[in-house]
């Protein structure tokens, strides 16, 4: 039986950038015990000799020519911005690397 602890879920929530309350973490950890058991069934038939399918169609080499097409106007590009300044998207301070 696979299970995810509260801390495991907290780590995943961090990777997925979702703040979660303690109750939510515990609740999800409980649900995952059930859900993971159900989805782990894929391992029963996924033997080494079976190829993986990542896409339903066997398409190859779909390209577009290197041609410039008109961009959005800056007004349209920024139309949804929660905040903007000097024709740029204004975002809170970025922590971490440069």
């Amino acid at each position: 039986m696979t299970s995810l602890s509260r801390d495991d879920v907290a780590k995943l929530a961090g990777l997925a950038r979702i703040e979660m309350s303690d109750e939510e973490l515990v609740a999800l950890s409980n649900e995952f015990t059930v859900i993971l058991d159900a989805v782990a069934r894929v391992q029963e038939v996924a033997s080494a000799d079976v190829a993986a399918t990542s896409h339903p169609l066997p398409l190859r080499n779909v390209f577009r020519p290197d041609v410039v097409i008109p961009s959005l106007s800056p007004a349209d590009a920024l139309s949804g911005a929660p905040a903007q300044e000097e024709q740029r998207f204004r975002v809170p301070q970025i922590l971490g690397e440069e």
Partner: protein
Amino acid sequence: MSLTYDDVIAKYEPVLGLEVHVELNTKSKMFCGCSTIFGAEPNTQTCPVCLALPGALPTVNEKAIESTIKIGLALNCSIAPFSRFARKNYFYPDMPKNFQISQYDEPICVNGYVDVEIETDEGPKVFRIEVERVHMEEDTGKSLHVGGATGRIHGAEYSLLDYNRAGIPLVEIVTKIVPGTGKYAPEVARAYVAELRDILRSLGVSDVKMEQGSLRCDANVSLRLIGVDTLGTRSETKNVNSLRSVERAIRGEMIRHAELLNKGERVVQETRHFQEDTGLTRSGRSKEQAEDYRYFPEPDLVPVAPDAAWIEELRAALPERPSIHRKRLQEQWAVPDKEMSAMINADVLDVVEATVALGADPTKARGWWLGEISRIANEKDVAIKDLAIAASDVAEIVALVNAGELTDKLARQVVEGVIAGEGKPAAVIAARGIKVVNDDSALMAAIERACAAQPETAQKVRDGHVPAAGALIGAIMKDTKGQADAARVRELLLGHLGQDS
């Protein structure tokens, strides 16, 4: 206290790893049709795709694939018959989708090499740098950090994002680890990046301007005690934006690592940022807790499976390798080593070649580019290639000099005029009225004017006092703005005044 470089190499062997990112010079972005022109107004080259608006989908630029295959071929790589794009998932505001479309375990080119030659104590020596992979990905947007002291991220109050650069095609060229370079590690790294730059330029796939960021190098360095097989802990230095910096960054990191190791301390596996002003690196993000990028095949794109005919067509069209090409030119032009290096260092080899191709004599072409034009570039403190003068202009000027229509002195004025933006050589000559005056009738008119203006001096000459002619010649030269041939003026003047010389 501080170690010297010699101390470091006496005890340790450096191991390198180089990752070079190249912005391709396609007209449109990797996954959308937005323009890639450098320096446009913010967010004017964006669309639903490169802004990652909900619902937008990427489409692959065929030219970018072609350029990547060319790069792989030029670096002696195998081109994978089947390769895929993958999503590299991590959150960062300059990356609109919060994943980068890249390639993971199925890159398009693998297993190549680049040979570089450097001068060692034992003479020239070739080092082989093995290339692990060449893959495609996309660039991020640019952030401007506002508030705080330096425009740096630290202390900034907020940031402003411009996504013009987001989605510009990038090719990442990753070496295998490079051991065995010993004390030459910094030079080898520099020579590798320089060779790569030359190859990429010869392929015409990138602007390869390190200062504009179209070619960027991350240098991984680790040290191990000489004779030890296991690898030491590496640091990854980013932000290395010139050939000189590549060399300095590696040398600096080698010394920093050695100091730590000598003190019995540990090298931290981390990203470091190269500081152009001090030549030192500064600690960035620690990589001890490795990011989990959760790569998986990009479901919005289909695999790339270039057919053999296409690859062979591209292979057949590859230009001569720059190092071989240089050797051939040197022989053809019979240029001494020193002059050849001067041209390479001044980055004028290709314009000299173009000038020669347009008919100019190699020595003269080289003379102009390394002489007068270099001088002006130095004076203006700009790169020679950024001056507004082309190989065709220089070839034209050389031809005019050969035909006797310009003197060297006048030719310099024409060069100056072209660079000043006055137009092509013919236009500069016309506008400035530059001309070698060898038209006797024009000279005779000037002589007559001079004699009329100074009748007494003219009479002295007529009376046989030849040295007095100097004053008249001076006036005539002034009248013709110095364009007349002084000897011819003298001859005509004396004849005119009945004193056959």
